[in-house]
């Protein structure tokens, strides 16, 4: 840091976190440790990490807050010349929301559902004693205008449930910016929003931060989002910041093996990539290895990585990495994982045809005459925003929804409506994998029972033979036989999804219907699941109907794509053509709003 920037900081805000450690109450286990980061005015710092990395804990510690069961053991958050963590709580309360503001992950839960929007904003100003009654209302209007929302009386009189998800999030942003804070902590504020809405919220946020000279910390698991909005990026792993640097450097020349592995795991919009995962999962407090915390999963690990705690090594201007071997592991190339796009000119052996599919919920028609087909050993992606009908279509194919008209033809045979109207053969050969592996596996059954059941049901194998096949299948999805007799609550999300895939494979299917199967998982896990599916497609000639909202993922996994909007097919064709040269306005809009790393 130069002399001038320090001076600058003292005048206009910003804040410095140093040597922060948050530990679990009653233990000496740390949730986050040795957090050193400087937030400069007018700059957005992206704090990226997978689940369990401690990113939210680090974020809320800036407000001198720790969740129940944890406490801030030591460290300092220097803001306007004083250490926020050392202040008495009355003082901290004055600073919270006023000087250091927080935007939570789920604004729907943060806004009071029984109070009108206008009143909630005015109440915030009252609480801090700002202005007169008329000024407060005017302030609320100005705040809403700033985030691109209407400021008329009708809007002020609405309740939170009368707004869309994106609007609610922008109201939360408006409330955060209203007291003119100097520091802003945003905790995954766009998770759960559609890409176009997310694009708008991010744009608003970025503009406000720069125009108000706010120092923002943007906490997220999504590297692609960070690549679009952050000035600097901090990557967290197992409670520590393992790499910190300017955005360009972080995405062009990442120095830490973990950052590199994460970047290898994320799909790109502009090219197909062979995604890879990181073996294992992020260790929680108490299971973290000593010395370098990444040493159990690192591909460059050496003996000294297990003995010496790595210091922050300067690898470039304003760019540090916490790794002993930064100079030794060579440079990284973003194109390393590139593969060729699926070839549009291969012969297609059609196995599933969907003809004029109309789907109803009660009397309401939600899908309006969709037609497309799936060929053998081909992945067809269904993409669209929430409410576009992509999951509904997949549920009809999977036999989970009965109210539809039109023709579904599987290998020349018409498919019945709902699984009970189908033959055992059809039920066996089309398998459905659910979005959330925490809900799709019965918590009372063991893995062996779950995976073995389709075999018993369809008469594929029984008893000892079935158990042997379960072991084989678990091996195919990269799970060891040690999990056989465990219940699912002992497994991580990625492992559960692997079990769900193994269950689907147990029926020896020809078509897998995958409904957003990676959206509940971390990127590194998503990478390995995608690699697994690609391998299954090649070795077992399985076709897939892959439902997703992530266009970048489509590029890396699918050969054909169907873009849906409001229950109708907007554009369809080969992935290369649709993503590189979209013809429809909607597809173009979707593509431009999708956060991309490249």
């Amino acid at each position, binding site marked *: 840091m130069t002399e001038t920037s320090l001076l600058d900081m003292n005048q206009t805000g910003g804040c410095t976190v140093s040597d922060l450690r948050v530990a679990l109450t009653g233990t000496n286990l740390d949730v986050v440790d040795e957090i050193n980061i400087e937030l400069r005015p007018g700059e957005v710092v992206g704090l990226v990490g997978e689940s369990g990395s401690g990113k939210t804990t680090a974020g809320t510690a800036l407000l001198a807050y720790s969740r129940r069961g944890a406490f801030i053991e030591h460290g300092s958050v220097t803001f306007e010349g004083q250490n926020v963590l050392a202040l008495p709580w009355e003082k901290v309360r004055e600073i919270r929301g006023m000087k250091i503001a927080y935007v939570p992950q789920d604004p729907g839960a943060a806004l009071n559902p029984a109070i009108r929007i206008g009143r909630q904003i005015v109440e915030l100003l009252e609480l801090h004693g700002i202005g007169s009654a008329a000024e407060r209302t005017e302030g609320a209007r100005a705040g809403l205008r700033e985030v691109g929302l209407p400021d008329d009386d009708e809007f002020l009189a609405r309740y939170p449930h009368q707004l869309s998800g994106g609007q609610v999030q922008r109201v939360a942003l408006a409330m955060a910016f209203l007291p003119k804070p100097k520091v802003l902590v945003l905790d995954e504020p766009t998770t759960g929003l559609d890409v176009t809405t997310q694009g708008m919220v991010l744009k608003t946020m970025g503009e406000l931060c720069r125009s108000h000279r706010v120092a923002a910390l943007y906490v997220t698991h999504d590297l692609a989002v960070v690549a679009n909005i952050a000035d600097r990026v901090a990557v967290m792993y197992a409670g520590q910041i393992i790499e910190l640097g300017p955005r360009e450097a972080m995405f062009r020349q990442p120095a830490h093996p973990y950052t590199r592995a994460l970047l290898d795991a994320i799909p790109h919009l502009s090219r197909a990539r062979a995604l890879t995962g990181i073996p294992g999962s992020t260790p929680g407090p108490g299971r973290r290895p000593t010395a370098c915390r990444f040493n159990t999963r690192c591909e460059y690990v050496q003996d000294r990585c297990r003995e010496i705690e790595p210091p922050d090594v300067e690898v470039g201007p304003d760019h540090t990495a916490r790794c002993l071997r930064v100079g030794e592991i060579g440079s990284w190339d973003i194109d390393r994982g590139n593969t060729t796009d699926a070839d549009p000119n291969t012969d297609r052996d059609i196995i599933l045809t969907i003809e004029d599919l109309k789907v109803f919920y009660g009397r309401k028609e939600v899908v309006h005459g969709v037609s497309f087909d799936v060929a053998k050993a081909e992945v067809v992606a269904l993409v669209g925003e929430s409410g576009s009908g992509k999951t509904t279509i997949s549920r009809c194919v999977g036999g*989970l929804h009965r109210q539809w008209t039109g023709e579904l033809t599987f290998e020349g045979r018409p498919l019945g409506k709902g*699984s009970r109207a189908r033959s055992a053969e059809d039920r066996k050969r089309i398998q459905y994998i659910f979005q959330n592996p925490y809900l*799709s596996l*019965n918590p009372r*059954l*063991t893995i062996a029972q779950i995976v073995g059941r389709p075999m018993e049901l369809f008469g594929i194998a029984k008893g000892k033979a079935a158990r042997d096949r379960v072991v084989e299948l678990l091996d195919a999805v990269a799970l060891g036989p040690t999990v056989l007799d465990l219940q699912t609550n002992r497994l991580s999300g990625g492992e559960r999804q692997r079990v769900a895939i193994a269950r689907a494979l147990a029926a020896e299917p020809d078509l897998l219907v995958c409904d957003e199967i990676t959206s509940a998982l971390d990127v590194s896990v998503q990478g390995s699941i995608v690699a697994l599916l690609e391998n299954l497609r090649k070795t077992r000639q399985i076709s897939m109907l892959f439902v997703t909202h992530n266009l970048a993922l489509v590029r890396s996994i699918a050969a054909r794509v169907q873009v849906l909007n409001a229950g109708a097919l907007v554009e369809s064709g080969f992935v290369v053509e649709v993503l590189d040269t979209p013809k429809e306005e909607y597809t173009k809009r979707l593509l431009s709003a999708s956060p991309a790393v490249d």
Partner: protein
Amino acid sequence: MSIVSPANLRRIGRQRRLVTGAVITLVIVLMAIFGPLFAPYGENEIVGKPYTYEGSFLGTDYLGQDVWSRVLYGGATILINSLLATALGMVLGIIIGVVAAYWGGWLDEVIMRLNDVALAFPQILLALLVLTAVDQPSWYVIVLLVGVSHAPRVARLARGVALGIVSRDYVTAAEALGESRVRVVLAEVLPNMNAPLLAEAGLRLTYSIGLIAGIGFLGFASNPSAADWGYMINENRLALLVQPWGVLAPVIIIGVFTIGTNLMADGIAQLSGRGD
């Protein structure tokens, strides 16, 4: 994977309510089972004049029988009958509730409206109505009546719990595989309901004891000469001021027992509420 794993036992041990309830219940159950072995006098043995403090420390009842001995003898029937009635009520109620929740639609509507009608009758009234028609009720009539009158109450709870489970993806997954409906209910739905249902069973046991004792007090005992906690209150109520122990002893023991089972039910509910 069983409920009795060391980790679970530790969790149960920390739940003081549950432990207290279980200990009280266990002590009284043991007393009811083994009591007759330790009774100083026989069940119908006359030890002195009625309503005096002859015999053992609780004195004598309206026929001059020893109250303490009759308390020790009188628990077995009431406990067995309550347990059977509770089991019957739970089974019936769970079947009704789960069927309504799982099949849904008009069947759910019909079952639950009929259930509401059944709920409108106070339990004891329904039992008395039948008992007055039957001259000398056998034990199984009482069990049947109490059990059946529990069923609608259990059904409501079971339906509520099951509704949250039948919409889960793993149930949908089993259906997509083409599992039979019975198997979906038995393997996927029921095992995930056991914590709230266990708590409900404890509560229903409490009510069963109260009901059966009440029926006994109102004069409907399957064997009038045998000792029975409920019936004893009726027998000795005339001398409440002269020899209160004839009434108080069975009242206290029924009270303590219901508190025990209730605490146990509460503890189970809290334990399962913290996420299983």
